[in-house]
């Protein structure tokens, strides 16, 4: 299960009740709000944020809109959705760039939020965008934190600047100079994890801020954070006037209510999400899409975007033509697997598809190893077999399974899945390219 889908399920239950009842009276609104309230609380949305949210929606719901509407359930979905979008910020926020390079990004947050890992991801992302980033090790407290950043930097091919355990302010200043004279356009400063109530360490951050005047100060927050997210975010924001938030570990099964809470108490945009352990597992945060995700309506836009990036254009064009001709072969199937793998976890993708929120899809159900097996099977086929799978009868199946080191059942399963996919492709064609959900 992915982000917010648990919350989505809960909300859906509420809405299906509303729809089934037809027109709403005040009592029913109240009942519905009680369930929404519980759903949000269980999702770890801060309780005062929930209170606000409920009172806003109730106010709207009590107006004529719902009572007079034809499908009251849809109306409430719309209202809740709008309100969620509003809470999380209504547009997606990009990284600011300094007018005079280097752009300085300072990371901050509690211990274990994922700052160092995120530094590596940001570095990799910027590098991919053609920038020349420099990572700076300013966590002088945690044992081996500097080593960790060095390894992370090495893995993504980004230089790491470190001056041992000297004062972070000094290291940061020297790093900026180093960047200026060596043509680095972005400096990412990793800082030690600290409690927001640790006055000395908070002052250290203020000092670094004063010394290097960061373009961005990004608060890294664990998406699993509970009610305290509000206190943490408020304090960091008050002391450092942060410019944005990064939400990490969104690949867990947390409902991620912290996202709503933080945005509503700080007013600062959530800029990125960490969605896995790989250096490429970083996404831009889209509040509107996230709201869709909360409601279980799917996130087709994000899916398409990811797919576009993963699948190279040529293969895409070919695929398009294949779909048009309803001439989908096992070779195309293979290309699909490859791009799915590039896109990240299958479960993650599936969950973004509209309608999939209804099904409990977890990593358990979609075994990535099985995908690997499927790939081996297709690779063991002849060209002719891949283009005309219908010729694969029992002796061919035996040969293919032996060649790929799999069982005949595996081969059968693959062929069956292929057929289903091809059928879906045909339906898509008839549906003018829309997914048949």
């Amino acid at each position, binding site marked *: 299960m992915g982000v917010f889908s648990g919350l989505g399920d809960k909300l859906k239950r509420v809405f299906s009740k509303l729809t089934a009842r037809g027109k709403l009276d005040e009592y029913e609104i109240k009942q519905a709000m009680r369930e929404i309230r519980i759903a949000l609380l269980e999702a770890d949305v801060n309780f005062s944020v929930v209170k606000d949210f409920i009172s806003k929606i109730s106010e709207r719901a009590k107006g004529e809109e719902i009572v007079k509407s034809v499908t009251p359930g849809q109306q409430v979905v719309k209202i809740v959705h709008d309100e969620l979008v509003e809470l999380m910020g209504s547009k997606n926020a990009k990284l600011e760039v300094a007018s005079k390079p280097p752009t300085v990004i300072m990371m901050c947050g509690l211990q274990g939020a994922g700052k160092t890992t995120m530094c590596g991801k940001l570095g990799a992302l910027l590098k991919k965008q053609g920038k020349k980033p420099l990572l700076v090790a300013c966590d002088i407290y945690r044992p081996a934190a500097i080593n960790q950043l060095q390894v992370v930097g090495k893995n993504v091919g980004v230089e790491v600047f470190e001056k041992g355990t000297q004062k972070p302010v000094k290291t940061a200043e020297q790093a900026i100079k180093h960047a200026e004279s060596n043509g680095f356009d972005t400096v990412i400063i990793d800082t030690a994890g600290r409690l927001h109530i640790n006055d000395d360490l908070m002052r250290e951050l203020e000092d670094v801020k004063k010394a290097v005047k960061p373009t961005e100060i990004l608060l890294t927050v664990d998406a699993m954070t509970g009610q305290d997210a509000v206190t943490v975010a408020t304090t960091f924001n008050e002391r450092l006037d942060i410019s944005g938030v990064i939400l990490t570990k969104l690949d867990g099964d*947390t409902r991620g209510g912290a996202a709503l809470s933080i945005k509503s108490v700080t007013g600062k945009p959530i800029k990125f999400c960490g969605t896995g352990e790989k250096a490429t597992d970083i996404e831009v945060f889209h509040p509107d899409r996230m709201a869709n995700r909360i409601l279980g309506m799917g996130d087709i836009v994000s899916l398409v975007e990811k797919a576009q990036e993963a699948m190279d254009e040529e293969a895409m064009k070919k695929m398009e033509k294949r779909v048009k001709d309803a001439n989908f072969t096992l070779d195309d199937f293979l290309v699909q697997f490859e791009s799915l793998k590039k896109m990240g976890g299958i479960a993650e993708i599936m969950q973004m598809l509209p309608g999939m929120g209804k099904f409990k899809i977890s990593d358990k159900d979609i075994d990535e190893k099985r995908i690997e097996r499927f790939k081996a099977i297709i690779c063991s086929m002849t060209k002719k077999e891949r283009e005309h799978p219908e010729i694969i009868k029992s002796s061919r199946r035996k040969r293919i399974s032996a060649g790929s080191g799999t069982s005949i059942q595996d081969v059968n399963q693959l062929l069956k899945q292929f057929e289903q996919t091809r059928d879906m492709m045909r339906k898509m064609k008839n549906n003018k390219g829309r997914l048949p959900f």
Partner: protein
Amino acid sequence: MGIFQKIKNALKKTKDAIAYRLNKLFTGGVLNGEFYDELEMILLSADIGSETTESILDDLKHEVDKRHITKTDDVRVVLKEIMHDILDFELPEEEYPLVIMIAGVNGVGKTTTIGKLANNYKRAGKSVTIVAADTFRAAAADQLTVWAERANVRIVKQGEGADAAAVVYDGLQSAKSKGTQVTLIDTAGRLHNKVNLMEELKKIDRVINREFPKAMRLNYIVLDATTGQNALSQVDLFNEAIDIDGIVLTKLDGTAKGGVVLAIAGEEEVPVVYVGVGEGIDDLEKFDIDDFVSGIVDNE
């Protein structure tokens, strides 16, 4: 700073937020619906979770009726009793050789906890071997080596990217041959919904059983006190993969309320064994229910 004082300080923050509201409630108020509504919100905002909050309140109302309590002050006593009961588990007596495996999601403080545990056992006069089986995170073994030096105990490690189960195998052979009393196994942080990583953990668990059948086994999950209701899911799935014997609740020195352990104790029946109250090597204490509950409910 004494042990008790340290926990108290850590809990003070837990308490401050809740206790302020509780105090407002408890002093001379009237027992009515509004009182319970407010109480519900207080418990919810402490990360106790809606299900457990509801059950606590049901029990509370029941007791209040039964004992004919009319003053909100007296409700406090009952509330403490109820919370105490939820958290009260009998812990097994430790026997040696002992193997403790530490697991949990990323960033909760597993490595730090291992360092503190090693120090505790060493101080209690036990021989300790640390096994660095987090072969995934960059420089994890380096970090653990620093802790091993601080605690002055042995450490068994291999290079980054080594097979974790193989490191554990090595570590256990070494611990056995040295006659180590306490073997502490650090594992990589993993999200509980990642099937492959949980399988890896199961494998490590099996290796320990196979290679060191004579040892007493304890598996602890480390939970970050700032975590919300997701901690339930963490305990649930880790418990499903490897039997979890107890919880180490870390970062209680922040403002996080840690109330989710009440939900976990109630719904998953896994006890809290230790609490982490700071970054120093001595900042790990045995979980004390009375202190914890008192810290949440009482004011000073």
